[in-house]
Protein backbone atom coordinates (compact mmCIF):
# COMPACT_ATOMS: atom_id res chain seq x y z
CA UNK A 1 0.00 0.00 0.00
CA UNK A 2 1.30 3.42 -0.93
CA UNK A 3 -0.82 5.08 1.74
CA UNK A 4 -1.09 3.50 5.16
CA UNK A 5 -1.57 4.05 8.86
CA UNK A 6 0.53 2.99 11.80
CA UNK A 7 -0.02 3.08 15.54
CA UNK A 8 3.74 2.85 16.12
CA UNK A 9 6.44 5.47 15.47
CA UNK A 10 6.94 5.86 11.72
CA UNK A 11 9.97 3.89 10.47
CA UNK A 12 11.40 6.42 8.05
CA UNK A 13 14.49 4.33 7.32
CA UNK A 14 12.38 1.36 6.25
CA UNK A 15 9.97 3.60 4.34
CA UNK A 16 12.81 5.28 2.43
CA UNK A 17 14.18 1.86 1.54
CA UNK A 18 10.86 1.01 -0.14
CA UNK A 19 11.45 3.87 -2.57
CA UNK A 20 14.95 2.91 -3.73
CA UNK A 21 15.18 2.80 -7.52
CA UNK A 22 18.30 2.84 -9.67
CA UNK A 23 16.49 5.11 -12.12
CA UNK A 24 15.97 7.75 -9.46
CA UNK A 25 18.42 10.60 -9.10
CA UNK A 26 16.79 12.17 -6.09
CA UNK A 27 14.57 11.64 -3.08
CA UNK A 28 12.41 14.18 -1.23
CA UNK A 29 10.59 13.59 2.03
CA UNK A 30 8.32 15.57 4.32
CA UNK A 31 7.79 14.95 8.02
CA UNK A 32 4.87 16.51 9.90
CA UNK A 33 5.66 16.94 13.63
CA UNK A 34 3.50 17.60 16.68
CA UNK A 35 3.95 21.30 17.50
CA UNK A 36 3.66 22.83 20.97
CA UNK A 37 1.19 25.53 19.95
CA UNK A 38 -1.79 26.16 17.69
CA UNK A 39 -3.90 29.28 17.27
CA UNK A 40 -2.64 30.87 20.47
CA UNK A 41 -3.03 27.77 22.66
CA UNK A 42 -0.21 25.78 24.27
CA UNK A 43 -0.56 22.20 23.04
CA UNK A 44 0.62 19.33 25.26
CA UNK A 45 -0.31 16.31 23.15
CA UNK A 46 -2.46 15.17 20.23
CA UNK A 47 -4.75 12.29 19.39
CA UNK A 48 -5.31 11.21 15.79
CA UNK A 49 -8.10 8.98 14.59
CA UNK A 50 -9.13 7.95 11.10
CA UNK A 51 -11.99 6.34 9.22
CA UNK A 52 -9.41 3.90 7.97
CA UNK A 53 -11.35 2.01 5.32
CA UNK A 54 -12.16 5.18 3.37
CA UNK A 55 -8.96 7.01 4.36
CA UNK A 56 -6.75 4.36 2.77
CA UNK A 57 -8.80 4.48 -0.44
CA UNK A 58 -8.64 8.28 -0.61
CA UNK A 59 -4.94 8.28 0.26
CA UNK A 60 -4.25 5.77 -2.52
CA UNK A 61 -6.20 7.96 -4.95
CA UNK A 62 -4.06 10.97 -3.97
CA UNK A 63 -0.84 9.02 -4.57
CA UNK A 64 -2.18 7.79 -7.93
CA UNK A 65 -3.05 11.38 -8.91
CA UNK A 66 0.44 12.53 -7.92
CA UNK A 67 2.02 9.81 -10.07
CA UNK A 68 -0.15 10.90 -13.02
CA UNK A 69 0.52 14.64 -12.60
CA UNK A 70 4.26 14.51 -11.91
CA UNK A 71 6.87 12.31 -13.62
CA UNK A 72 8.12 10.71 -10.41
CA UNK A 73 9.15 7.09 -9.84
CA UNK A 74 7.56 6.18 -6.52
CA UNK A 75 5.55 7.82 -3.75
CA UNK A 76 4.61 6.70 -0.26
CA UNK A 77 2.71 8.29 2.63
CA UNK A 78 2.43 6.95 6.18
CA UNK A 79 0.19 8.58 8.79
CA UNK A 80 0.31 7.91 12.51
CA UNK A 81 -2.84 7.40 14.58
CA UNK A 82 -3.34 7.25 18.33
CA UNK A 83 -1.87 9.44 21.05
CA UNK A 84 1.19 11.50 20.12
CA UNK A 85 3.53 13.65 22.20
CA UNK A 86 5.20 16.92 21.27
CA UNK A 87 7.90 16.36 18.67
CA UNK A 88 6.48 13.03 17.50
CA UNK A 89 6.14 12.50 13.77
CA UNK A 90 2.50 12.50 12.69
CA UNK A 91 2.94 11.98 8.97
CA UNK A 92 5.68 11.11 6.49
CA UNK A 93 5.70 11.53 2.71
CA UNK A 94 8.50 10.22 0.49
CA UNK A 95 9.07 10.60 -3.25
CA UNK A 96 11.82 9.55 -5.60
CA UNK A 97 12.26 10.65 -9.19
CA UNK A 98 14.82 11.02 -11.94
CA UNK A 99 15.10 14.76 -11.25
CA UNK A 100 14.53 16.81 -8.11
CA UNK A 101 11.98 19.37 -9.30
CA UNK A 102 9.07 17.01 -9.76
CA UNK A 103 9.91 15.21 -6.51
CA UNK A 104 9.47 18.46 -4.54
CA UNK A 105 6.25 19.24 -6.44
CA UNK A 106 4.75 15.78 -5.92
CA UNK A 107 5.66 15.79 -2.22
CA UNK A 108 3.94 19.15 -1.72
CA UNK A 109 0.89 17.99 -3.66
CA UNK A 110 0.51 14.82 -1.61
CA UNK A 111 0.78 16.41 1.84
CA UNK A 112 -1.59 19.24 0.85
CA UNK A 113 -4.22 16.86 -0.54
CA UNK A 114 -3.91 14.47 2.42
CA UNK A 115 -4.59 17.33 4.82
CA UNK A 116 -7.68 18.41 2.89
CA UNK A 117 -9.26 15.16 1.75
CA UNK A 118 -8.41 12.16 3.89
CA UNK A 119 -10.80 11.43 6.79
CA UNK A 120 -8.35 11.87 9.66
CA UNK A 121 -9.12 13.91 12.77
CA UNK A 122 -6.87 15.54 15.33
CA UNK A 123 -7.76 16.34 18.91
CA UNK A 124 -5.49 18.82 20.64
CA UNK A 125 -4.98 18.79 24.40
CA UNK A 126 -3.97 22.16 25.83
CA UNK A 127 -1.91 23.30 28.80
CA UNK A 128 -5.08 24.94 30.15
CA UNK A 129 -6.69 21.49 30.55
CA UNK A 130 -9.03 22.21 27.67
CA UNK A 131 -9.14 20.13 24.49
CA UNK A 132 -10.66 20.40 21.06
CA UNK A 133 -11.06 18.74 17.66
CA UNK A 134 -9.18 20.83 15.11
CA UNK A 135 -11.45 22.46 12.49
CA UNK A 136 -14.58 21.19 14.27
CA UNK A 137 -15.08 23.20 17.42
CA UNK A 138 -14.75 26.89 16.65
CA UNK A 139 -16.85 26.72 13.50
CA UNK A 140 -19.56 24.53 15.02
CA UNK A 141 -23.10 25.82 15.12
CA UNK A 142 -23.21 25.91 18.90
CA UNK A 143 -20.37 27.83 20.57
CA UNK A 144 -20.06 25.54 23.60
CA UNK A 145 -16.70 23.85 23.91
CA UNK A 146 -16.56 20.11 24.43
CA UNK A 147 -14.81 19.16 27.66
CA UNK A 148 -13.65 15.62 28.06
CA UNK A 149 -12.39 15.69 31.65
CA UNK A 150 -15.42 15.50 33.88
Amino acid sequence: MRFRFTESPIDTVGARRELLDLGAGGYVSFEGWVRDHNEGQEVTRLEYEAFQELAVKEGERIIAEALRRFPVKHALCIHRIGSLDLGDMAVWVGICSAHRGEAFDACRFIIDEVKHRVPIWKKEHYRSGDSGWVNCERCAAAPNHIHEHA
Partner: protein
Amino acid sequence: MQLKIHYYALMREQAGRSEETLETSADTPAALYGELVDRYGFTLMREQLKVAVNSEFSDWGRALAAGDAVVFIPPVAGG
Protein backbone atom coordinates in the same frame (compact mmCIF):
# COMPACT_ATOMS: atom_id res chain seq x y z
CA MET B 1 -35.12 -0.25 7.69
CA GLN B 2 -31.95 -0.92 9.62
CA LEU B 3 -28.78 1.08 9.01
CA LYS B 4 -25.34 0.79 10.54
CA ILE B 5 -23.84 4.12 11.65
CA HIS B 6 -20.23 4.71 12.66
CA TYR B 7 -19.20 7.87 14.50
CA TYR B 8 -15.79 9.49 14.57
CA ALA B 9 -14.02 12.28 16.44
CA LEU B 10 -16.28 15.07 17.73
CA MET B 11 -19.40 13.21 16.59
CA ARG B 12 -18.33 10.05 18.42
CA GLU B 13 -17.99 12.04 21.62
CA GLN B 14 -21.30 13.84 21.14
CA ALA B 15 -23.15 10.61 20.34
CA GLY B 16 -21.43 8.81 23.22
CA ARG B 17 -20.78 5.78 21.03
CA SER B 18 -18.66 4.79 18.07
CA GLU B 19 -21.29 2.75 16.23
CA GLU B 20 -24.85 1.59 16.34
CA THR B 21 -27.49 -0.20 14.30
CA LEU B 22 -30.53 2.01 13.90
CA GLU B 23 -34.10 1.36 12.83
CA THR B 24 -35.08 4.41 10.82
CA SER B 25 -37.47 5.72 8.21
CA ALA B 26 -34.81 8.14 6.89
CA ASP B 27 -34.29 7.28 3.23
CA THR B 28 -31.33 9.57 2.46
CA PRO B 29 -28.17 10.56 4.37
CA ALA B 30 -29.58 14.10 4.63
CA ALA B 31 -32.77 12.87 6.32
CA LEU B 32 -30.75 10.56 8.56
CA TYR B 33 -28.49 13.40 9.71
CA GLY B 34 -31.54 15.48 10.60
CA GLU B 35 -32.86 12.61 12.69
CA LEU B 36 -29.52 12.16 14.47
CA VAL B 37 -29.16 15.88 15.20
CA ASP B 38 -32.47 15.68 17.04
CA ARG B 39 -31.31 12.62 18.94
CA TYR B 40 -27.74 13.61 19.85
CA GLY B 41 -27.58 17.39 19.46
CA PHE B 42 -24.66 17.32 17.02
CA THR B 43 -23.20 20.83 16.79
CA LEU B 44 -21.79 20.48 13.27
CA MET B 45 -24.02 21.73 10.51
CA ARG B 46 -24.66 19.42 7.59
CA GLU B 47 -22.89 21.87 5.28
CA GLN B 48 -19.67 21.25 7.23
CA LEU B 49 -19.81 17.50 6.75
CA LYS B 50 -19.27 14.94 4.05
CA VAL B 51 -20.97 11.59 4.11
CA ALA B 52 -19.87 8.10 3.17
CA VAL B 53 -22.09 5.10 2.43
CA ASN B 54 -20.50 1.65 2.47
CA SER B 55 -17.04 3.22 2.78
CA GLU B 56 -17.25 5.49 -0.25
CA PHE B 57 -18.09 9.19 -0.46
CA SER B 58 -21.76 9.71 -1.26
CA ASP B 59 -24.27 12.38 -2.20
CA TRP B 60 -26.60 13.58 0.54
CA GLY B 61 -29.61 12.65 -1.61
CA ARG B 62 -28.63 9.06 -2.34
CA ALA B 63 -31.36 6.50 -1.65
CA LEU B 64 -30.34 4.41 1.34
CA ALA B 65 -30.97 0.67 1.40
CA ALA B 66 -31.39 -1.65 4.36
CA GLY B 67 -28.04 -2.69 5.77
CA ASP B 68 -26.11 0.31 4.41
CA ALA B 69 -23.24 1.55 6.57
CA VAL B 70 -23.28 5.34 6.93
CA VAL B 71 -20.48 7.55 8.22
CA PHE B 72 -20.75 11.31 8.63
CA ILE B 73 -17.37 12.94 8.12
CA PRO B 74 -16.59 16.05 10.20
CA PRO B 75 -14.05 18.59 8.88
CA VAL B 76 -10.77 16.67 8.54
CA ALA B 77 -7.42 17.60 10.08
CA GLY B 78 -4.75 15.13 9.04
CA GLY B 79 -1.06 15.95 8.76
